[in-house]
């Protein structure tokens, strides 16, 4: 499904009817996400942060979905969706602090970069193991239903995750118990080096929903309005007691899997170039210009604003110290048991002895 035509006009039958301001806000969020991404990638190259996993080329899939959800709806992320978290107002400074694992990092440098979360923004915690978040989204939605709350839960995962145990269990439970869950499969063409064609024998990932008798749709994931439309439809179904929906967002990972990856080893540049021509940002920009709501000047100004913002955050983050060593030993349990008190005491002693030593 595609809403934004190549000439920038909208398919009148599919136009979800967002106001210009809404679309401009979406576009700005997509640009901001990309600018932040770009800065973090440079920082990693410069060895100033350890790692980054970005969303280059997938911004429409991520932001379009985030925008289609309501404030009370939950987002259960994979690891490329920080754009959705920022869309909900998560402070950029806090995100950058997390990227540095410094004293400002809400989790005290306990996880790798890009492992964000925020209860205030109804955004669960990023976890590295593929697929584990999918049953959480079902349980979360199930709980909302049991507690009679008007909430639904959108969970992001990749094409590769459809092969995981947790995908199968989660899809089955959601369908059997009719939980208000929206399965957002970012089919970006690859699971690291493994192309989607090698991940499954099916032609599409939407086909997989049939095994659970779950309604499914497949949309152009680089068309932010098509994404918005499909996800909003799923929200409506979920809130009307229609149960779960599977949405395949067909997109492409324009960058490497992460800063640790070298995609040249497994895909050729022609493929990347052809997808670059389907980049969601220019497509939306064209539409906005067509609507007379955007132009080059506004664009470069906005990019500058975003870049300055992130540079400011980086500067601030680099001045912050490491988290206290004590933070290694807290939050394992609600209260610290004796064995962790011992271990913490010994770790602090070792650290101090060391300092004297050196």
């Amino acid at each position, binding site marked *: 499904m595609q809403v934004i035509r190549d000439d920038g006009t909208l398919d009148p039958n599919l136009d979800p009817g967002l106001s210009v301001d809404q679309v401009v806000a979406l576009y700005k969020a997509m640009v901001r996400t990309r600018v932040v991404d770009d800065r973090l990638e440079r920082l990693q190259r410069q060895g100033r942060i350890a790692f980054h996993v970005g969303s280059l080329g997938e911004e429409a899939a991520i932001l379009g979905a985030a925008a289609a959800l309501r404030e009370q709806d939950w987002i259960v992320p994979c690891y490329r969706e920080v754009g959705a978290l920022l869309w909900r107002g998560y402070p950029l400074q806090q995100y950058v602090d997390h990227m540095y694992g410094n004293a400002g990092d809400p*989790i005290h440098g306990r996880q790798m970069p890009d492992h964000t979360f925020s209860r205030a923004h109804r955004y669960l915690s990023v976890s590295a193991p593929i697929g*584990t978040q999918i049953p959480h989204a079902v349980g979360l939605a199930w709980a909302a239903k*049991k507690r009679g709350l008007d909430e639904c839960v959108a969970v992001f995962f990749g094409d590769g995750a459809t092969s995981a145990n*947790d995908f199968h*269990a*989660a899809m089955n*439970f959601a369908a059997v118990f009719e939980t208000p869950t929206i399965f957002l499969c970012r089919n970006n063409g690859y699971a690291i080096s493994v192309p989607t064609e090698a991940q499954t024998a099916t032609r599409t990932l939407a086909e997989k929903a049939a095994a659970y008798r779950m309604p499914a749709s497949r949309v152009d994931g680089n068309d932010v309005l098509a994404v918005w439309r499909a996800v909003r439809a799923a929200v409506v179904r979920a809130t009307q007691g229609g149960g779960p929906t599977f949405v395949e967002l067909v997109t492409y990972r324009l960058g490497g899997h992460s800063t640790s990856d070298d995609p040249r080893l497994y895909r050729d540049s022609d493929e990347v170039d052809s997808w670059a021509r389907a980049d969601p940002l220019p497509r939306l920009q064209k539409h906005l210009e067509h609507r007379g709501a955007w132009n080059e000047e506004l664009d470069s100004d906005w990019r500058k604003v975003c870049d300055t913002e992130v540079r400011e955050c980086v500067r601030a983050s680099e001045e912050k110290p490491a988290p206290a060593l004590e933070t290694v030993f807290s939050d*394992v*349990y609600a209260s610290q048991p004796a*064995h962790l008190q011992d271990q913490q005491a010994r770790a602090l002693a070792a650290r101090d002895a060391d300092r004297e030593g050196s």
Partner: protein
Amino acid sequence: MPEMNLVQAIQNALAVTMRADPDVVVMGEDVGKLGGVFRVTQGLVDEFGADRVIDTPLSETGILGTAIGMALHGMRPVSEIQFSDFIYPGFDQLVSEASKYRYRTAGEFHVPLVVRTPYGGGIRGGQYHSQSPESLFIHTAGLKVVCPSNPFDAKGLLIASIRDDDPVLFFEPKRVYRAIKMEVPEEVYEVPLSEAKVVRPGGQVTCVAWGAMLYEAYAAAEEAAQHGVDVELIDLRTLWPVDLDAIVTSVQKTGRFVVVHEAPQTCGFGGELVARVTERAFVHLQAPPRRVTGYDTPFPLTHEREYLPLARRILPALIETARF
């Protein structure tokens, strides 16, 4: 006060907690109409309905993974794994998710989940209906592990586990389910976690056990007394975080330590206790600590009574340790 066996006490603990707290739900395979293969949840679906006593599809990944999601929302799910031997398909959700969620969100999210599961041998269950996998979970930081030996403790510990804000593995000694009865209060009460209990005071050898093997250790201790060996027997009740002080205090007195468990010896919890006791009470030790455990083989069927560390294997260990 009514008399209850272990099954009834656990059933009662679930019922009284569910009456008091609408956020408590029970879920698992066959927990509804059937009442579980051991009938522990029998009758619950009639009182609380299928929305709170949930028969799930056959997926431990789903049972644990969706329960974690419910817990993240603030509910207090009690998941049943039909036999602890079948927990492995859901192992990832416990080890990678439930155990680490609080840590990786600095307490912003936590997982008040209880996983009930029958464990252990002695019911002719063979390889896949007899296992005792507790040490795998004790090794995993962020999980608590509880194992009651009697109906009174079982009810109090289960209520405490459900009210606890961290994920708890609740291992039920299936061999004890209907083997003993005792008086159990109808009302709600807690047996605090991480408190061991001296069930038999003694001065010469400290013996630690839990679950079904507690009775074997007790029988062995009584028989040891005939041989003039005075055993102090400790029921651990909560395996992790363990009440190490209770053990060390006793060993400082006796200078001798024997630990008993059904699980295979190697990397079982007994080894950890021997190591901690040796580290904390080395100068008091007058004999090498001893482990009386299952063997390092899969759990057999025909010879399960030879495999299990029954009283007849514990007794010589107690006597030899005392006379070392």
